[in-house]
């Protein structure tokens, strides 16, 4: 994927990229711009969510239209756990050992944050398991998409109606437990690592086989249903992770996790390319950037800002008509390609240099 050949150069490049990413996060975090913090954070979180969806849609080949529901689960779980911990420990203790005076977090704070995110992810994974077992065995294609959408709407509706879980206004972590681009960046790297491990393992390869041909895969001894459910559970877990991080990012109402969010995630995945992990990250960047930066510029006509849906629709239709595989298709951003590009540029420059002396003569 990221590297066809696991050689020193590729490994180093990847490490450098990760460090650059995290450094960038720290930079933004300590910078003045609240907007950029918001943008970068949201990009990172949405990347994780998009990656989760891509695992099911791109790698498993089954279309799930309801990942918004899993994000909601992660969000709600994280909030509940955090609130519970706070109530148990007490607000004073929080002031002493969890926060710093500048509003950041002490190590204990980071510990609490990490654990509530991870627990929320696991809980969501469990729900994903249940949904997967029920739905994946019996339904295919369009039906699966609609059922997953329906399930996510059930989650939204339940959460909306039970005040303890959110009510119409939603709940939030009303204690600032931090959450910053750095954390999201680390989580993104962790997620990518988890996904790559999964995809390279026998489970991942079984999943890819199922995508291409269910029956042939079965004939090869792949327990198709098992693989599907496993992949779906894993995807729900990552989505829950993203949802939990979302809880630390901002406060949201349950209704914001409905159909619109699920479709937005689908757009991101399709735009980036089904099956391309780097593609999802890139397109998450594009979409969030469009929403939070482009639409808020004063020089952008009112029309776009208040009707982002039209642009989404146009993007979707255009991409489906002209390049239905998305920006990157099923390929990944590869260092080989990147350096290859470098080389080409270098050669071009050298060629020019060689020619100029002659002309002078």
């Amino acid at each position: 994927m990221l590297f066809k050949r696991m050689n020193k150069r590729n490994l180093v490049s990847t490490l450098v990229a990760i460090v650059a990413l995290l450094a960038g996060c720290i930079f933004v975090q300590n910078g003045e711009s609240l907007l950029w913090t918001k943008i970068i954070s949201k990009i990172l979180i949405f990347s994780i969510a998009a990656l989760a969806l891509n695992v099911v849609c791109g790698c498993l080949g089954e279309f799930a239209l309801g990942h918004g529901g899993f994000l909601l689960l992660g969000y709600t779980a994280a909030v509940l756990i955090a609130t519970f911990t706070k109530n148990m420990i007490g607000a004073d203790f929080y002031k002493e050992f969890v926060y710093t005076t500048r509003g950041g977090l002490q190590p204990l704070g980071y510990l609490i944050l990490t654990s509530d995110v991870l627990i929320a992810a696991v809980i969501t994974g469990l729900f994903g398991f249940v949904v997967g077992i029920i739905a994946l065995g019996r339904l295919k294609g369009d039906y699966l998409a609609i059922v997953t959408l329906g399930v996510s709407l059930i989650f939204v509706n339940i959460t909306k109606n039970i005040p303890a879980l959110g009510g119409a206004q939603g709940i939030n972590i009303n204690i600032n437990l931090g959450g910053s681009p750095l954390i999201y960046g680390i989580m993104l790297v962790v997620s990518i690592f988890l996904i790559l491990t999964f995809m390279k393992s026998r489970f991942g390869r079984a999943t890819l086989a199922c995508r291409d041909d269910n029956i042939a895969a079965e004939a090869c001894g792949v327990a198709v249903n098992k693989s599907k459910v496993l992949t779906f559970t894993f995807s729900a877990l990552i989505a829950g992770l993203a949802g939990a991080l979302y809880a630390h990012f901002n406060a949201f109402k349950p209704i914001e996790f409905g159909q619109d969010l699920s479709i937005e995630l689908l757009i991101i995945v399709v735009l980036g390319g089904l099956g391309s992990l780097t593609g999802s990250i890139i397109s998450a960047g594009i979409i969030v950037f469009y929403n939070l930066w482009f639409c808020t510029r004063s020089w952008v006509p009112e029309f776009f800002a208040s009707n982002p849906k039209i642009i989404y629709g146009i993007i979707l239709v255009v991409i489906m008509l002209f390049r239905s595989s998305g920006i990157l298709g099923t390929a990944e951003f590869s260092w080989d390609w990147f350096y290859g590009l470098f080389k080409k540029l270098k050669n071009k420059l050298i060629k020019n240099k060689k020619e100029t002396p002659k002309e002078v003569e």
Partner: protein
Amino acid sequence: MELFFEGLKNGLAMGSVFALMALGYSMVYGIVKMINFAHSEFITIGGFVAFFLAALFHDVLGWAYSVGMLLLCLAGAIVVCVIIAILTERFAYRPLRKKGSSRITALITAIGVSYILNGILNAINNKQLQFPTFFDNDTAFIISIVVTAALLILLTFFVKKTKVGIAMRAVSENEEAAKLMGINNNFIIALTFVIGSALAAIGVVIYLLRVPFFTFELGSSTIGLYPFVAAVIGGIGSLPGSVLGGFLIGILKEFAAVFGISAWSDVIVYGIFVIILLFKPAGLLGKDVREKV
């Protein structure tokens, strides 16, 4: 007990609306094999045209007011919806069919089209507008039941007995063989969309008779995915199934309202949806299609 009957009556009325819209989804899915997500926007467009005409000609027609207005709104809504449907099919869906795209590509394109239409509609206005009432509740109820029953019978006759109807079924079975029979696939598919959108238009006008409020989110939010769920529950591709599904969902929704738990109607409807699909994936009246190895 009284509550029960009220719920039943409202449910049947609402159900007939859902049934008509479900028929639209069902025909398109059955023959073109795609979920036309943009159907919900056709509904909104139909409603808008009806509202516009009603507002415009409010004072013109005299004694024939009620019936006349109804027919006028129906005609207008149908015409505009059909035009939009034809354009959508011609420019968004047909190129995909020509390329031989997958079903998911078609589904995503449909979502895209629905977003575009929704965006355009919302840009016009986003207030809730009042629709004039032509009939009292009871008459409206009778009209909706009669219209739904009539259309179901008409459609069934069309699909079973007329040449073009049989050709539609042939196209849904096997496009290539249909071409060899001299059937113009593109025409048949366009015709399917025409019928589907006309049904959506009729459905929304009937809806507005009883619930006289129009917003630009009518198709996408207020009515939302319910007709689609109805079609799937009843058995997508089956005409009586869609109608049955429509009535079922309508009754569920109205009973929830009557017993004061309408906030939970989503959970109830989608819950039943998931349960039915688990035990009978082809829907209540659908045919179980087994994949041939």
